[in-house]
């Protein structure tokens, strides 16, 4: 037990600061992924001339491993676009890109599942397209895709462990730093793994419960 105290409990400040970075990256990446994913999905569905660009981007984001994307964004983008300028930015940009591809497909499934008649009815009472999207499509899509969104967030949390590779000081980085100081990996790595498993478990359980409740309340049949 002495080891656990020395290697894990006494290092709680470092681990906690790492946890904060992890949470920050995941939340920023998730928010961006939703926005970019929705944009990609809308471009793919409604902007004819750019359709193939959107499909290409979606497929590229989806079919490239996250580690490769992370290194690519970190080391190639600055030379190409002069951005991202910090490792932290590169980390959430890469995570957001990967998820935006998946979310774009999720949103497309959600939009396509809405009966055509609803949109036609709205147009026939004279609603402009943007209003139709905001009032009729978006509320239903956000409910029907809620479980997939939760799932995608857990994927982001899991992938976020890799940002330690580009020296972003997240939880994984802090725990490996402690390993490199003491050369005693058993306790600290086990504790870190347990923390991650607990976080992902909590997020997915709580998220599923929340999604189900919202869907029940607003009358969408549970899948």
């Amino acid at each position, binding site marked *: 037990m002495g080891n656990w105290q020395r290697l894990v409990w006494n290092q709680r400040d470092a681990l906690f600061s790492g946890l904060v970075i992890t949470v920050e990256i995941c939340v920023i990446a998730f928010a961006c992924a939703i926005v970019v994913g929705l944009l990609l999905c809308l471009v793919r569905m409604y902007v004819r001339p750019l359709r193939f660009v959107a499909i290409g981007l979606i*497929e*590229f984001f989806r*079919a*490239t*491993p*996250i*580690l*490769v*994307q992370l*290194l*690519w964004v970190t*080391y*190639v983008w600055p*030379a*190409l676009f*002069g951005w991202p300028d910090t490792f932290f930015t590169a980390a959430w940009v890469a995570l957001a890109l990967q998820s935006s591809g998946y979310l774009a497909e999720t949103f497309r499934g959600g939009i396509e599942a809405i009966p055509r008649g609803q949109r036609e009815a709205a147009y026939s009472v004279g609603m402009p397209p943007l209003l139709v999207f905001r009032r009729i499509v978006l509320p239903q899509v956000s409910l029907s895709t809620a479980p997939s969104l939760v799932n995608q967030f*857990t994927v982001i*949390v*899991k*992938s*976020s*462990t*890799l940002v330690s*590779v580009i020296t972003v000081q997240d939880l*994984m980085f802090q725990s*490996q730093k402690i*390993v490199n100081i003491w050369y005693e*990996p*058993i306790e600290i*790595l*086990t504790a*870190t*793994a347990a923390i*991650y*498993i607990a976080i*992902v*478990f909590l997020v*997915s359980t709580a998220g599923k419960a929340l999604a189900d409740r919202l869907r029940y309340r607003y009358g969408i049949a549970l899948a």
Partner: protein
Amino acid sequence: MSESLQQILDVSVFWEYRTVLLRGLAVNFYVFACAAALALSLGLGAALLRISRQRLLRWAGTLHVEIFRNAPDYIMVVWVHFVLPLLIGTLLHTRFELNPFVSAIIALGFVYSGYFAETFRAGIEAVPGGQIEAGRSCGMSERLILWRIVLPQVVRRMLPESINQFISLFKATTIVSLIAVPDLMYQVSMIIQQEMRPLPLYTGAALVYFAVILVASYALRAASERWRNKIFT
């Protein structure tokens, strides 16, 4: 900007190192195949535990699934590579080391067994109970029922879902480069350290993985669709 674009378009570095890089890609496939075999067998085991009639076994199955489905693959790879050998060493009172290949396969196999267990379970539960009862009433043993009645249907039902999981498993094999398994990504980093030219190499690596995964996923999906149609109609 234009200079860096030129650098990216310059594939000569990639061509120069083609044998090493191809060998790296082969390592990716090798790790993938072994991890997939491990994940499938462990996943089937865990799924059978989860639907067993003994409560203790059911709990064990659920625990397995919840731990490995919720664990990030990177930390599992690191844990298996650095902690597991120490634990085994203390148990056996000897120095014990794991080959990075073996750690990578164990870690990825266990992590993905969690996902496969859920897919198997869903497939098994979709088999109508009457079929199993019919098998029992003909005097088939539980094992025979599993092999002859349940599994053939499960495999077909879980095919589309498991293709997605195979694809993510293949993508996850890139992280084994971080424990020095010489896969494509590892070779790319080594070459970058020598040549100091990250632009064409990282871009090339991304494109290679993109092409491999895109082609594999389309081909697998088309093949499985055809196969399912042939059997279900």
